């Protein structure tokens, strides 16, 4: 029973990571630095709450949440792909912009600087714990995301093109691959996926709170890097990070390890992974280069 609860809580924490890391893996495999996952997630959370609030339907919330992610990703794509802006600067700017615009619209729509009113979510209000989890379609979607992405990346023509433009755009172009179009799709897809993570978060908590993603987008990015840009490994990294968090919550009463040190785990592991002498994480060759 304890194990089941542990597993349920781990999955609950891992779902936003899984969605966002899938978005991150997709963008980075196409050569686009995924620094704005945090912004896409936050925008997705806000969009979901807006949709769910005004229609009363969680499903409409999913649609509006994803729409927000795609719109934010489109800004990123226009700046980096059309105007060749620096990807890292653009990523940071998208995050700043999203924090600002969600705060502004929170004020405008709900006259609050901290949170939205309660909105509909998935599953009845009275189902608790593991049951709420299995009755939430986003949980199943989240668990399916990484295997699905692995299939797309490794087994489809589109996936082959994504990997080609991320490793060697000029070679891909010489074979007639429309480099910028593939990258556009990858960026918009990463926005949609990461926004699903934010949507799950907001619908799970039945409200939007200011800056509610709280760095989850960066944990997802850490998972992508720690998973060496491979969807399956990145998914496992998400589960690992979520498991560590669950353990910390479970052991909080015991005060064995300060929570701050558990919070550091993903970041420390990622640094070790990129600096590691053995089995080092090596990014896609053309990551961050759109100025060729």
């Amino acid at each position, binding site marked *: 029973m304890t194990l089941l609860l542990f597993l349920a809580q781990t999955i609950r924490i891992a779902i936003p990571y899984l969605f966002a890391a899938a978005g991150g893996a997709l963008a980075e495999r196409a050569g686009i630095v995924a620094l704005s996952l945090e912004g896409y997630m936050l925008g997705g959370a806000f969009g979901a709450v807006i949709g769910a609030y005004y229609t009363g339907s969680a499903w409409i919330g999913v649609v509006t949440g994803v729409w927000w992610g795609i719109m934010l990703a489109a800004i990123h794509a226009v700046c980096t792909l059309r105007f060749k802006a620096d990807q890292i600067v653009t990523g940071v700017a998208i995050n*700043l912009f999203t924090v600002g615009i969600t705060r502004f619209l929170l004020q*405008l729509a709900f006259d609050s600087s901290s949170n939205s009113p309660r909105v509909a979510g998935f599953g009845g209000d009275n189902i608790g714990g593991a049951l709420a989890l299995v009755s939430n379609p986003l949980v199943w979607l989240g668990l399916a995301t990484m295997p699905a992405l692995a299939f797309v990346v490794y087994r489809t023509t589109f996936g082959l093109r994504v990997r080609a433009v991320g490793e060697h755009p000029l070679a891909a172009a010489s074979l007639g691959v429309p480099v910028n179009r593939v990258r556009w799709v990858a960026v918009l897809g990463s926005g949609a996926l990461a926004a699903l993570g934010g949507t799950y978060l907001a619908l799970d908590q039945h409200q939007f709170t200011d800056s509610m993603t709280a760095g989850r987008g960066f944990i997802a990015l850490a998972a992508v890097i720690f998973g060496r840009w491979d969807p399956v490994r990145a998914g496992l990294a998400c589960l690992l990070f979520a498991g560590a968090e669950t353990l910390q919550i479970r052991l909080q009463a015991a005060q064995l390890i300060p929570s701050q040190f558990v919070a550091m785990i993903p970041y420390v592991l990622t640094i070790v992974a990129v600096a590691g002498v053995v089995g080092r994480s090596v990014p896609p060759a053309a990551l961050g280069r759109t100025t060729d």
Partner: protein
Amino acid sequence: MSDTTARRAALEEALLPPIVALAVVLVIGDLLILAYGEAPGAVWRLMLEGTWGNAYGIGQVLYKATTLACTGLAVAVALRAGLFNIGAEGQLAAGGFGAAIAGLALPAGTPSIIATPVCIAAALLFGGMVAAVPGVLRAKFGAHEVIVTIMMNFIVLALLNYVIAAHLHVPETLHTPSVHAGTIERIGSVIPAFHGSAVNWSVVVVGTAVSAVAWYLFRTRAGFELRAVGLQPGVAEYGGVNVSRTWMRALALSGAIAGLGGVNFVLGYKGYYEDGFAGGAGFLGIAVALVGRNHPLGVVIAALFFATLSQGGLAINAMVPKQIVEVLQGIVILAVAASVPEVRRLVRKAAGARRSGMPTSMPTATEELRAARMSGDQRPSA
């Protein structure tokens, strides 16, 4: 002739993107203000009056610009060496923490002529140490500094949060006790007009540091090597520059400058370290460096601009939510980042035409072809 053409092109390249950004910001700001049901003109006027319209406002802008100049210059110095330091947020916090630790360790009554330099040195050291980690990992193991600096932010902030929350806080707060020595006086205590504003003599310290960095970058051998590595590491290496060591030095310097920003808050404003005081100033440093075109003078101007926006947000809060400036800050960065490559392309095209005696309005077929190729997607030109 050709020299003035080049200078004019460089000037245009530096000035046009911020002008484009300003125009975009005014339009989008107008729309947001209208969405909130206020008159844009009145809001912009209020913003100007609340920032540059009185001594208090000017003091507040200068206070905020002091921190931003540090984080902006930190990012700029690293970029000059070809490295992207996204860790200024953590380095700034660490610097502030270092200053507070030094101020707490010194006995009360230490003359400030000794205490303040010691605290400042501690801030430089702590910020530099945080940035040295990605520097060493980059130089020794080839670990990408963007990833390491991002991750270091979270590690440093969590570590500082732990130290404060578990060991060093005044009960019921998340800040340290007040430092015993080393505080920097506010300017308001000398010039009464600034009374009440947070601006303090750190602004002079930081101003000196900016000049020193400018001198280092453009007038010393080490600075020349740093810039050479940033432009072409391979060529620099061939010319006898130790690229690895230059990278480590550049990141340590960058972190130390970011750490210096902590002095402004800890020694000059509050007199103690408070958890979360950096509050995004480190990330905004990326914007400051971008708008300031990685030049110390440009960084100062950009810091003043972003500080004006940030203080202006508070001034207009009575009419429209202050969050509007956060949106605008994001837009400024996006607009500048997007227009820099475009402006560079257009300016170089125009300069090339001027140099060869062609009228700019009538590019030759070759010019057009080249421009089309440059702007086109990744199709190879061969």
